[in-house]
């Protein structure tokens, strides 16, 4: 227990854990947000011709993923990184829910 505590306290280990968490967030969170955003855009964008919405949704999804990844590493703390993904994800989810109704 004591060693463990010291390990976590040591800056290099804390840095590594932090980087690991952020990497996971970037990989899965970024992609997840892209998938969710694409779903919302494809169903919700106001196009008469639905395939246009799909095409645009796909393009926006990749931009979304990029911004998410950059954000995850740019955010000052892991908490803010998570929030930066969670808030838009919640908004997209809400949008999808509204669309379904």
């Amino acid at each position: 227990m004591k060693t463990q505590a010291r390990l976590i306290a040591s800056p290099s280990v804390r840095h590594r854990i932090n980087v690991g968490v952020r990497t996971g967030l970037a990989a899965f969170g970024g992609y997840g947000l892209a998938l969710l955003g694409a779903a919302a855009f494809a169903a919700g964008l106001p196009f008469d011709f639905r395939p246009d919405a799909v095409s645009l949704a796909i393009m926006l999804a990749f931009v979304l993923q990029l911004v998410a990844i950059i954000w995850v590493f740019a955010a000052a703390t892991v908490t803010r990184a998570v929030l930066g993904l969670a808030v838009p994800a919640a908004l997209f989810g809400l949008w999808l829910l509204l669309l379904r109704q």
Partner: protein
Amino acid sequence: MTTFDQPRPLRQSMSWLHTWSGLLLGWLLFAIFVTGTLSYFRNEITFWMQPELHRAQAVPPEQIAFVRALALLEREAPGAQQWTLTLPNPRNPTLGLGWQAAMGGERQAAPGAARERPGRSEARGERGASAPDSAAERRPFPADASRERPGRGEARGEDGARRESPWRGSGEGGAFAPDSAERRSFPADAARERPGRGEARGAGNASAPQETRPQGSGAGAQAQRQGRGGGGGGGGRGARIVLDPVSGDRLEGRATAGGNFLYRFHFELYGMDRIWGRWIVGIATVFMFVALVSGVIVHRRIFKDFFTFRSGKGKRSWLDAHNASSVLSLPFHLIITFSGLVLFGHMMIPTAVQSAYQGDNEAYYGAMRAPMASAVSQASGERAPLITGLAALIAEAENTWGDGKRVGSVVITHPGDRNAVIELRQMNFPGLTGGRNIPSLRFSGVTGEPLGASAPREQSIVQAVGSVLNLLHRGFFATPAPRWLLFLSGVGGALMIASGLVMWTIARARKTSEAARTHWGHRLVEVLNIAAIAGLMAAIAIHFWANRLIPAGLSARADWEIHAFFIAWAVMLVHAALRRSKAAWVEQLACAGVLFALLPLLNAASGGLALPGSIARGTGLLVGFDLCALVSGAGLLFAAYKVHRHVPRVRLASSPSRGEEPDPDPGPETEPGMPLPETMEKAA
């Protein structure tokens, strides 16, 4: 050093992100960039790799032996629903013949095909007119056949090279079948999954001869992957039969995947399930995208250092080279990366279609294709002779278009029927925003009277954007200038990645101690750099050599050309691991340089049209290939020479008088435009 658990400037975190997203898949990205860049000239490469065809000479339509060509089609594919003649063009001087089976039961196997060449028969069987049986055999999902939609017979009747082209079907987005991620998308599946393709052809879309028609055969490549032998099929542009345009004699090109190997490698790698390959490439592309944008954020003096390149200053020069090759072609890098992602869009982001259509992919593709009204005429069942004066029709069409527009291909639907239609398609896409609509004129096949022009399809803005991304990525242009610009930009991108990779080791080596430099991680990066950069060049050169050294008649020779590439690459990796890094760099660069520089000689010695001959006859694509080989060879040899002469600064660091620090000419630029990879700072 960047510690992520403490407050740090944005540029520091972006620098970390840039370093690692660039390094982690950098070697793969370099290979993708190099093979992708070469793919801009894959038609030329395929043509070069079939020296049997070199002596064909592009001639104007009135000199083409249409009578013989039509007679040959009549003999080889009498019941076909459609014949296609691909006219000689600057990127392929031969006349290509292809056909599709009738939609009904009256399919005709190509009689002469199977006996021609043993190595080809299987591929031909697959690509042949009677595709359904053979396709069902090789597909794991034979039941799919029952889900056939109208219009699919057509797609299926196409030769494999066209069927497999991943972007062929759905017009602009280059849509992947959404469910293709779950299943192996074999050609006939692909046809089902992408219903758009059937009428993409019917509407006259996919017909730019030298562009949309992969040369040689993708079928060959795939057949090879599955150990089926069978190479380039008919040789040119997916045509089944290649003719000398003047004499009408049949030309038998050697079995080769040609430029299609490099082309397919750049987006689905090799030797694995293609879906896996595409996912790996897609993920690498995301890394590239992240590395590009984080690099821009990091590089705060982007305008001040715009033209800055200082040679002979060690690490500084590498940084300058990396910045210059990145920044000066930044629009290209961003577009090519983003369009690459969008081309994988339906595969990587399946939720878009799922959500918009509640999982009903067929509905999506149905909606996609609705606007493309296809006017496939019906056969009357009454026989009537086809007119023979194709050249006159072509002249008429070119007159109607004016402005130097040329006919690229002739598509004859229901040949021999009273309702036969001759469609003359333009050689090139008229612009980037029009999707894959290619203008065409239709004539009655019996009387020759004009039946009108293809209606240009209205494109929405989103479609136009998708079309621009798609066509730019793939370099669909009428004239060579834009293709060369894309090629050169691609070279710039390869240099960007290579300089970035090299910089990682240089930046690290300079400041770290001897112990850290021999650290296994450092050594690993070094070895991979050598094998991925210099080794890849050598492997590509050896691929071209293998094309000429493997006997033309050998069975499965097309496979062996590809095996030679990978064996050579593996040897380079082992070599890089065994030799000291500088020696390995020099030897591999020199090896690649010599092999490239000697390619023109090899071409002359192994049956190809030699450089003086190709210049005299104006066969520009061969001149271009040989000159490119010479220039690449010279460049690689120069690089080898520079590395050889290079005195590593690391060792000099012990003697302060000749060391790099402090910079003798600090100037305003001593503050680095881009912080160096923080790993070295950490190690310091």
